[in-house]
């Protein structure tokens, strides 16, 4: 089915383009620009799911910025682990923001589409593993720090998703680099799943609600998955989708959107009536 033509149902829709793991080096200028230039004709926004650079240098970020600058649709991004490698993520963020990219880390952004609000909550996320096969916050300080990093990241995603609910968004998208579910990792060696994502992200998504979760990072994984709570998950790592971007179309009149009071997400134990 093509999404490039008009929607035949006549319902208001948002067309989401998404890609992650483009891993552009300084020698990659212009690689994706021709495909990105078609975006105004087929999408309302572009999501970048992290690992935009090869080693996370400002010079590589400038290559990424030039690929998406003035592309004609809003661009929303999270960073990936590669974008942190050179230890200057704030430089990478600055270069991307200067080019008009909305870079999210525990933040949200709301875009107007066809008279409705489309919200994106973004966080890089972290590793840790999935239910029954995950690391615990116990033992050496390094181990505790590892698990806490994942937990803090999931908490920030929950906070950003709560903002979207408060805005009364018709469509809420969770954008991460690491995977919230193991489904979309199929194809990766099972032994490395704990390095590819964390169920804490899915828990945050299910607790706050979302209409779509988009991630990257798992280059050998598969595109389709779902959280335990039924939220659709898509792995848009470029080697997985094998295109410059993937396209998804979601109805804007699917849920009765009404702004609610902004409320901080409940801490996890409280959600289950504990502590």
């Amino acid at each position, binding site marked *: *089915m*093509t*999404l*490039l033509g008009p929607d035949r149902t006549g319902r208001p829709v948002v*067309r989401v383009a998404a890609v992650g*793991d*483009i*891993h*552009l*080096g300084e*020698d*990659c200028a212009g*690689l*994706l620009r021709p*495909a990105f230039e*078609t*975006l105004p004709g*087929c999408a309302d926004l572009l999501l970048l799911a992290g*690992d935009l650079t*090869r*080693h996370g240098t400002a010079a590589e970020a400038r290559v990424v910025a030039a690929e998406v600058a003035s592309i004609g649709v809003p661009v929303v991004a999270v960073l990936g*682990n*590669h974008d942190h*490698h050179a230890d200057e993520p704030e430089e990478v963020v600055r270069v991307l923001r200067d080019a008009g990219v909305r870079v999210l880390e525990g933040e949200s952004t709301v875009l107007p589409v066809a008279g409705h609000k489309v919200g994106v909550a973004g966080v890089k996320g972290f590793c840790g593993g999935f239910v029954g096969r995950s690391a615990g916050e116990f033992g050496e300080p390094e181990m505790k720090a590892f698990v806490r990093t994942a937990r803090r990241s999931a908490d920030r995603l929950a906070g950003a998703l709560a903002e979207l609910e408060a805005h009364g968004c018709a469509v809420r998208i969770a954008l991460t680099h690491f995977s919230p579910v193991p489904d979309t990792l199929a194809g990766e060696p099972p032994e490395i799943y704990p390095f590819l994502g964390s169920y804490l992200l899915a828990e945050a998504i299910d607790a706050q609600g979302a*209409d*779509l979760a988009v991630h990257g*990072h798992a*280059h*050998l994984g598969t595109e389709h998955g779902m959280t335990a709570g039924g939220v*659709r998950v898509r792995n848009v790592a*470029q*080697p997985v*989708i*094998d*295109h*410059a*971007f*993937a*396209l*998804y*179309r*979601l*109805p804007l009149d*699917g849920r009765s959107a009404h702004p609610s009071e902004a409320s901080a997400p409940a801490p996890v134990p409280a959600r289950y009536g504990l502590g």
Partner: protein
Amino acid sequence: MTDRPEPYEEEYRIALLRERLARGGQAELGVRVERRGGGVLLTGTVPNATRREEILDLARDTLPGLTVRTEVALAGRDAPDHGEELP
């Protein structure tokens, strides 16, 4: 040096290649190293041909005397001609 390494040494050299690929960021690109017959096979997807050459050079440098075969693809960079309806 072009002498074929001892069989036990091969294991560690292949592990070293994996580590070098990890440090260079290529491993996470999805480049995998597998033993195939008497040599190794590199598979995966990379953004451009230069990256593919780098990986092959690194493998030949790390695994002297071993046959290195590659099936490393370039990631598709075209706009999609279809999408997915998420009702």
